[in-house]
C-alpha cells in the first residue's frame, strides 16, 4: 500500500497505468482482431479503461472492501492488460513514421494539461459534486456510504449524478492509499491524451488526412471553454469526460456513414456510457441513438440499431434502479411543463435564446469556435458530406434545444450558469466538423483505415 510520502505522480501513475491496462484488454475484446492505429488504440484504451474501472469499482464495492477490493481489482485490471498485450502482439497496431508530428503535439498537450491542472484547485463543483464521493468511498474502505444518497441535508449535492468521475478519483485514492485533492488532478492528463488521440485517429480515418487529424487534436487545447475554463479538461468536473465519450461515439457514427460494415460495438459502448458520465449524457446518448437509428433504418440495418441501444439502456436503467433503491432524491429544480407556464413566461423564451446566442459568441471562452463551426457545416453541406453535416447539426442542435427547454423550466435566477459547461461536448463535435471542412490543398495520404469485421 502506498502512503502520503510517495509523490503524487507515482500514485497517479499506478492508477493510470492499471486503468490503461484494463482499457487495452477491453479494446482487444471490442476490436476483435481488427487492425488499428497505435494512436487510436491509446485513445480507445484510456477511455474504455476509465469506463471499466468506474463500473468495476462501483460493482465490486458492494461485495468487497479494504485491501481485498483494491488488490483484487488491481489483479483484474492487470490480467485484462496481459490479455490486451497478447492480443496486440498477435494483431500488431500500426504506427507510421508520419505520426511523429502528432506524438510531439500530444506530449506538449499532456504537459500543458498537467501544468494548467495544477495551476487551479478542484473548484467548488469539483469538490462537492464529484470528489466528495471519492473521498467518502476512501474513508469507508472503498464502499461509498449509501446514506450519502438519501441525506436530506445534502440533496443539493445532486445524489443522482452518476459516478464515472468519482469512481476514477476513488481508484486514484484507493490505489495510492491517500486522499489527495491536488494529486487527483493528474487524471486530467490521460483525459487530454485520450481526446487528442481520438481526434487524430478518427479524423484521419474519416478524411484520409493526417493533417486534419492534427488540426482537430491541436484545436481543442486552443479553445479555452474546452481546455482551461471551468468545466474544461483541467478541472475534472465531468463535462470534458462527457465530451470525450460523445466525441468518440459521434466519430464512430460518422465513420459508419463511410463504411456500412463498420462494427457497431465501439459506438454502442461509447454511447452507452454517456448516462454514466453525467446526467445530461442521457440526452446526448439518446440523440446519438436516434440519429443512428434513422441512419441504420435508411440502410436497412435495423438489427445494428437494436444492438447499439443495449448498453445505453442497461446503463441508464441500471443507474435509475440504483437511485430508486437507495432513495437518492434531488430537489426538484424544474417547473412542470404546461401551456399555461409557456403563456405566462413567454418572454423568458427570448431571454433563454438570447442568453444562448450571447454565450456562443463569447470570444473569451469559445474564441471563434462556433462561427468557424457554422462555416464548416455550410462548407460540408455544399460538398459531398451533406449527410455528415446534417448529423453534426442534429447532434449539436437537438441537445442545445433540450437544454434551452430545461433552462426555461428552471425557476432559479441563475439558470444560465451551467450553459458554458453544457456546451463543452457540443463544442468538441464542432471541432471535428471544422477539421474535416478545413480548406487544405493536400495530396491524399495513405491512412490507417480500420478493417471491417469479417
Amino acid at each position, binding site marked *: 500500500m502506498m502512503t502520503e510520502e510517495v509523490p503524487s505522480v507515482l500514485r497517479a501513475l499506478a492508477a493510470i497505468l492499471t486503468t490503461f491496462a484494463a482499457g487495452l484488454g477491453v479494446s482487444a475484446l471490442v476490436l476483435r482482431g481488427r487492425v488499428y492505429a497505435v494512436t487510436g488504440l491509446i485513445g480507445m484504451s484510456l477511455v474504455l479503461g476509465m469506463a471499466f474501472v468506474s463500473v468495476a469499482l462501483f460493482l465490486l464495492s458492494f461485495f468487497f472492501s479494504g485491501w481485498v477490493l483494491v488488490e483484487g481489482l488491481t489483479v483484474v485490471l492487470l490480467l485484462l492488460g496481459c490479455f490486451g498485450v497478447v492480443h496486440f502482439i498477435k494483431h500488431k497496431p500500426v504506427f507510421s513514421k508520419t505520426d511523429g508530428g502528432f506524438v510531439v503535439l500530444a506530449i506538449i498537450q499532456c504537459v500543458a494539461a498537467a501544468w494548467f491542472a495544477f495551476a487551479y484547485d478542484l473548484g*467548488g463543483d469539483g*469538490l*462537492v459534486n464529484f470528489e*466528495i464521493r471519492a473521498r467518502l468511498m476512501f474513508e469507508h474502505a472503498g464502499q461509498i*456510504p449509501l446514506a*450519502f444518497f438519501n*441525506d*436530506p*441535508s445534502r440533496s443539493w449535492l445532486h445524489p443522482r449524478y452518476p459516478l464515472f468521475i468519482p469512481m476514477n478519483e476513488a481508484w486514484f485514492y484507493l490505489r495510492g492509499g491517500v486522499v489527495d485533492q491536488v494529486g487527483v488532478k493528474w487524471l486530467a492528463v490521460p483525459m487530454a491524451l485520450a481526446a487528442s488521440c481520438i481526434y487524430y485517429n478518427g479524423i484521419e480515418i474519416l478524411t484520409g488526412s493526417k493533417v486534419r487529424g492534427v488540426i482537430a487534436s491541436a484545436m481543442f487545447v486552443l479553445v479555452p471553454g474546452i481546455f482551461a475554463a471551468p468545466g474544461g479538461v483541467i478541472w475534472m468536473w465531468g463535462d470534458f469526460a462527457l465530451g470525450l465519450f460523445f466525441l468518440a461515439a459521434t466519430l464512430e457514427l460518422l465513420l459508419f456513414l463511410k463504411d456500412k460494415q463498420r462494427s457497431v460495438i465501439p459506438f454502442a459502448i461509447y454511447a452507452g456510457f454517456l448516462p454514466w458520465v453525467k446526467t445530461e449524457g442521457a440526452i446526448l446518448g439518446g440523440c446519438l441513438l436516434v440519429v443512428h437509428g434513422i441512419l441504420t433504418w435508411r440502410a436497412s440495418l435495423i438489427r445494428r440499431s437494436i444492438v447499439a441501444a443495449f448498453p445505453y439502456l442497461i446503463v441508464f436503467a441500471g443507474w435509475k434502479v440504483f437511485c430508486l433503491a437507495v432513495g437518492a432524491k434531488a430537489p426538484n429544480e424544474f417547473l412542470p411543463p404546461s401551456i399555461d407556464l409557456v403563456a405566462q413566461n413567454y418572454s423568458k423564451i427570448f431571454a433563454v435564446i438570447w442568453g444562448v446566442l450571447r454565450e456562443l459568441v463569447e470570444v473569451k471562452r469559445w474564441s471563434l469556435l462556433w462561427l468557424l463551426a457554422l462555416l464548416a457545416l455550410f462548407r460540408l453541406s455544399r460538398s459531398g458530406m451533406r449527410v455528415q453535416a446534417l448529423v453534426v447539426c442534429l447532434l449539436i442542435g437537438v441537445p442545445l434545444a433540450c437544454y434551452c427547454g430545461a433552462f426555461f423550466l428552471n425557476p432559479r*435566477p441563475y439558470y444560465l450558469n451551467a450553459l458554458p459547461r453544457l456546451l463543452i461536448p457540443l463544442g468538441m463535435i464542432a471541432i471535428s466538423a471544422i477539421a474535416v471542412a478545413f480548406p487544405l490543398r493536400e495530396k491524399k495520404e495513405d491512412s490507417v483505415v480500420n478493417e471491417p469485421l469479417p
Partner: protein
Amino acid sequence: MHLSVDDGTKALRSELSALPLNEDILVVGAQADWTLCDVYMMTSYLAWPRRVWLLNLNPINANAPFDFPPPGAIEPSMMLFYDTTPPPAPNQRKIGDRLVVTRIKS
C-alpha cells in the same frame, strides 16, 4: 479563502470533528453573493455525516442565489455565523475575520 485566514479549512474541520456524528449544524449568513454558499458547501463537505443546513437571511435573487434551510424544526448542536453578528453566547470561537462558530450543545 473566504475566511481570510491561513488554514481556515483545517480550523473549521477541527471544530466540526468535535461534534458527534448524528448532529445538525446550521450555517447562517446574509451575503448577497456566492461566498456564503461556498462556506456552506465547504462546511457540508467537511462535516459528513453530520447534517448541515443553510439559512440565508437575504431573499433569494440573482446575487444571493442559494439557501438550504431545514425542512422542519431542528436543534442544531453548532451554528456558524458567516459575516453576520451572532447573538452573544458562551461557547463561541472566531475563525478568521468573518466566521463565528457557536457550540450550542457541549
